[in-house]
């Protein structure tokens, strides 16, 4: 039964990835930049990974699961900003990435303190 579930899930995931790779999606960016076909597909696969994270935020049995998923989501957005930097050719996207990384780190520390049940003094 577990093998069956694994099989269904793998077919679903690999199917979505193959669909993203072979199907010509409409890209929102400038079509005359180099490698834009490859980088647009990269963006869609990162969004797929973010949806997997959001599943864990939605269905997490405890609060710690949700905090882990939010932390991981913050790290992945930095990669998304880096890909946006090359795919649009605007260099200020990486500034958003750096600010997001700092913010996500401090957010994770504060949430873990909250989870521990102590105040912020010690």
């Amino acid at each position: 039964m577990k093998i069956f579930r694994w099989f269904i899930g793998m077919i679903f995931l690999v199917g979505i990835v193959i669909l993203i790779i072979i199907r010509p999606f409409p890209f929102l960016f400038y079509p005359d930049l180099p490698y834009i076909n490859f980088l647009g597909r990269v963006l869609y696969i990162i969004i797929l990974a973010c949806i997997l994270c959001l599943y864990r935020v939605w269905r997490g049995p405890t609060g710690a699961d949700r905090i882990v998923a939010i932390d991981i989501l913050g790290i992945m957005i930095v990669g998304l900003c880096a890909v946006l930097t090359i795919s649009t050719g605007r260099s200020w996207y990486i500034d958003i990435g750096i600010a997001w990384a700092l913010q996500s780190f401090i957010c994770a520390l504060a949430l873990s303190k909250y989870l521990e049940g102590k105040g912020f003094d010690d």
Partner: protein
Amino acid sequence: MKSRISMFFVAFIVWCLFNWVPDWQHLVIGGFVSAFVAFMVGDLFITRPHVLMHPSRYWYFFVYYLPMFLWECFKANLDVAYRVLHPRLPIYPGIVKVRTKLTTDTALTFLANSITLTPGTMSVDIDKDNGVLYIHWIDVKTKDVESATRIIVDRFEKVLKKIFD
């Protein structure tokens, strides 16, 4: 005083890298900002400034520690990919206890970071007074303290002792 001067140089280099290609206006503003930062928080971050002066420590860091760390990190990722994609999910998790001989804060932080990014292990808590680390291990091979220490900690401890102590 020494720690504030070294903090000034670290902050100034980071400022120059953030404003790449630096011209003279950036350099003047960066000098004021990093002097302020060094005056405020200099003796919090760098507590033992004489460690920064030895070139042999940088040699050990870049030649021995960094390639070993990157290779272990890559192996860890392949290991996680294998365990996640396997249909029967081959994990045997548990929290074990290991001992360490390192004492300084920086060395313990680097040891915990290295343990977290290497195959199958993640540090849960550090007890600094007794020199004990609690480690969550995804594939528990032994419950004994000494043999777990030999498997997990020893390869990093030898290099980190030369770098940070």
